[in-house]
């Protein structure tokens, strides 16, 4: 075990997988000499060479397509989007070529697209987006979104070893703001399993990514008032661990779903739908969602602060639910 940042955990997972599996290689912009916009791949070029750490031209659709082709003939490409926002430029290749391939032809497309996503860095509408729901709604893709260094490493390894195209959403704010104990050696966390980050009896709080920290903060605050909130970290968004969600809701009878992506048609909507169908009789209060409003991500700090859910806003919702 060693204490490390979320960024370092991702870096380690990549490094180890490349080290032990020749099929793993990297494609992306500025990932070679420069080591990546966030320095995740610093040192990789020297260690693994030009063949396996490929600085591509500025062409997301092109290099995602190339990753698909390489995956089809036995490689394990890991693509870095410089920012998740640019994943839109490769949307067609992802949802039409990669996502549908196994269903149509029975051939696996084992590849990972790393998507540095999310806000709180005052980076504006084009460097802060949360793209996960688009891909959850596109059958054939897995979507992963870890919240801690430990999960980030174990889930990235699992994503690389998975036989399907995985959109690995790594939260930019967490890169340097999440620290934790991480095993130095090899371990894998299964895709599709949520993790209870805090046990509780009164309210189920379902979330993931950067909102887990905020949720835990809010839960601590509630605890001082005698309300025990159970924080369920989804970790994988597709496939969704509905068992874990339903278990927590059934146990607590109340639920708050939190995410940073826009509320309308976000993953929170799906979770609410599952709960309202499957756990209807266990509910003691309306299914409550807290997510971003229906706007692009604004740039200026007061606007972005207003836009993003955080511990304070979560606590307010929890209080409402507690006193319901």
């Amino acid at each position: 075990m060693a204490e490390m940042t979320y960024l370092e955990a991702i870096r380690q997972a990549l490094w180890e997988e490349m080290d032990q599996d020749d099929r793993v290689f990297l494609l992306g912009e500025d990932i070679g000499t420069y080591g990546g916009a966030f320095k995740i791949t610093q040192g990789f070029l020297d260690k693994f060479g030009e063949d396996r750490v490929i600085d591509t031209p500025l062409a997301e659709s092109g290099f995602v397509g190339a990753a698909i082709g390489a995956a089809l003939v036995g490689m394990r490409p890991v693509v870095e989007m410089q920012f998740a926002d640019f994943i839109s430029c490769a949307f067609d290749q992802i949802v039409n070529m990669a996502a549908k391939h196994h269903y149509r032809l029975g051939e696996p497309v084992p590849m990972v697209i790393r998507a540095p996503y999310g806000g709180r860095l005052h980076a504006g509408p084009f460097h802060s987006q949360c793209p996960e729901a688009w891909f959850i709604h596109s059958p054939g893709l897995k979507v992963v979104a870890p919240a801690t260094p430990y999960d980030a490493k174990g889930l990235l390894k699992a994503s690389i070893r998975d036989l399907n195209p995985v959109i690995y959403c790594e939260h930019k704010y967490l890169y340097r703001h999440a620290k934790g104990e991480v095993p130095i050696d090899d371990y894998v966390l299964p895709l599709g399993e949520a993790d209870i980050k805090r046990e509780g009896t009164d309210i189920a709080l379902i979330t993931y990514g950067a909102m887990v920290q905020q949720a835990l903060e809010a839960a601590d605050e509630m605890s001082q008032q005698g309300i025990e909130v159970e924080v369920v970290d989804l970790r994988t968004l597709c496939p969704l661990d509905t068992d874990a969600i339903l278990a927590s809701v059934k146990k607590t009878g109340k639920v708050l779903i939190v995410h940073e992506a826009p509320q309308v048609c976000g993953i929170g909507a799906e979770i609410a739908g599952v709960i309202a169908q499957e756990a209807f009789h266990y509910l003691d209060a309306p299914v409550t969602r807290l997510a971003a409003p229906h706007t692009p991500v604004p740039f200026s700090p007061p606007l972005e602060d207003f836009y993003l859910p955080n511990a304070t806003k979560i606590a307010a919702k929890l209080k409402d639910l507690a006193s319901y």
Partner: protein
Amino acid sequence: MELRIEDLLKLYYYLRLTRGLEDRVIKMYRQGRIVGGCYVGTGEEAISVGSACALAPDDVVAPSHRGLGVHLVKGVEPKEYMAQYLGRRAGPTRGKDGNIHFGDIRRHIIGFISPMADGIPVAAGVALAFKIRREPRIAVAYFGDGASSRGDFHEGLNLAAVLKLPIVFICDNNQYAYSVPLSRQMAVSHVADRAKAYGFPTVIIDGNDVLAVYDAIKGAATRARGGGGPTFVECKTMRMRGHAEHDDASYVPRELLEEWRRQDPIQRFEGYLREREVPEERLQAVETRVLQEVEEAVEFAEKSPLPDPSEALEGVFAT
């Protein structure tokens, strides 16, 4: 390069088989016996057959929707093709996808999908894998004139150029993209003019001359295999039918079609075979074989079961 009689007969067989199967599918389309739309490459068979025959068995192809010949040369069987057109479980997609949208990576074929040009970067990725693994294999991407307007064409060709990948780009320039003639698709005369933007060799050939296609691709493949990087081969041809069988192509000038009909690649090749004095009975034997295989394929497909409804739920994820 002079081909041996056996090789010539192989080309001839695949030309005839491609034409035979597609003619038959057209007929069945009219009779309402197939599922969905009907896309054929009538008159363009020299490109798919000539190029595929010029490749090594384990080279990987990404054919377009005009490329039945490529599939056949790579080993796809007439029965599978017919079963696919009839939405049967025995088709290569088990009924999940239709008509020419199939592939099989074990037989080194990347399945075609509708969004035009998507296969180009994918094929580049295949070539990249070969380069990384230092395998002496190449990838081949096929696409139409219309497809070359898409961003993925640009991004794919450029990636291949910069990384100097072992790949051949084959443009089936059949003068039209659905109803849009070349002159409204681009402001240059040849698709190859576009490809000059990438810094690797381009050639323009007569796409209705199967031997010219064979030779050009053989050369380009050798170059790619030897580490020389990509080549762009534009094959001039003409779409002799509608975009698909629902389209009567009344927007195509009749004279243009007449002119090209005289250039039919199979007739031309037959002329050549006779010049080369290939015995008439060998040609006849090919025709007989093709007719029989087509009939068997239809019979097989029509007898073969549709998928069970619940198979719809299978196979989204690889496990």
